[in-house]
């Protein structure tokens, strides 16, 4: 199972400036866990200490919102995850 994760620009300093990463998993949660395994510094930018997704992080699977129950959302080989962060500047 290979899933491509698009990393938000603001997080790329934590992924060696990689814009994408290849991860494995059958759910969004497993894929993000694999991403954290590869880039441990990203964990605190995605999750609360209790392991919940931070409320300003949004995950899209093949450009569709995975909300609610994001972490349990199933994914399949070839899917693309996008990690986005809320922005509020004007």
């Amino acid at each position: 199972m290979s899933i491509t994760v698009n990393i938000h620009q603001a997080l790329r300093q934590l992924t060696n400036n990689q814009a994408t990463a290849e991860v494995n998993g059958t759910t969004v949660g497993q894929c993000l866990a694999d991403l954290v395994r590869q880039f441990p510094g990203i964990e605190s930018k995605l999750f609360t200490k209790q392991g919940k997704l931070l409320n300003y992080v949004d995950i899209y699977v093949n450009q569709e919102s995975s909300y609610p129950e994001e972490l349990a959302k199933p994914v399949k080989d070839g899917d693309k995850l996008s990690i986005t962060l809320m922005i509020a500047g004007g």
Partner: protein
Amino acid sequence: MLTADERERYDRQIMLREIGEEGQEKLKRASVFIAGAGGLGSPAAIYLTAAGIGRIRLVDHDRVDRSNLNRQILHWNNDIGRSKVDSAAEKLKRLNPEVQIEAVNKTITKANLSQLVAGSDLIVDAMDNLETRYLLNKAALDNDIPFFHGAIYGFEGRAMTIIPGKTACLRCVYRGVIPEEKFPVIGVTPAVIGCIQATEVIKYIVGIGELLTDKLLNYDALNMEFTEFKVKKDPYCEHCGHMKRKE
């Protein structure tokens, strides 16, 4: 009815089959509320004024600072220290005296928002913080006014159009809060997003094209990529949902 001067001024857009004289008259009859006269509000207000919107109410509480001038193109060097809405209104009136520009120098609050948006047909979100965006979203839903969201950060921008009762609202998409902060930005980013918001407003008023509803447009200027993320109306949404989520 358009005057002879208006027919001349808007000649090139009246030529558009999608707009024509009928569409131009719709623009003339429309009243648009723009929340914020900064990076997004500047291009949105300029292009809506140029297009011949009948009335624009521009609300902002801030004064022009030198550090605004890299992106807030309605404000120039000699406006530093001046109220943003006065500075903006002066330029907009000079650009198109046919448009009624109402400059409101106020902070948008929960208490005054219904009064501020009263009489407006559309709301443009050109704010710089999420808290006020949520207030605007709720007011738009409560008053059944279409809402045109935009936001930027650095080289990235987002836009989304919300039709109350029909499409996903801002709160369906964003549930969290982020602290108000000094954000990095280069002027070309809000220029693009503000113009997209103005385009959506024009399309909605005239009744043409496909709107950015149920999708969040993401603009990545560094890679010059536009991505549409599909979003859905959330039945449990705090602002527009009809169901209550179990705690």
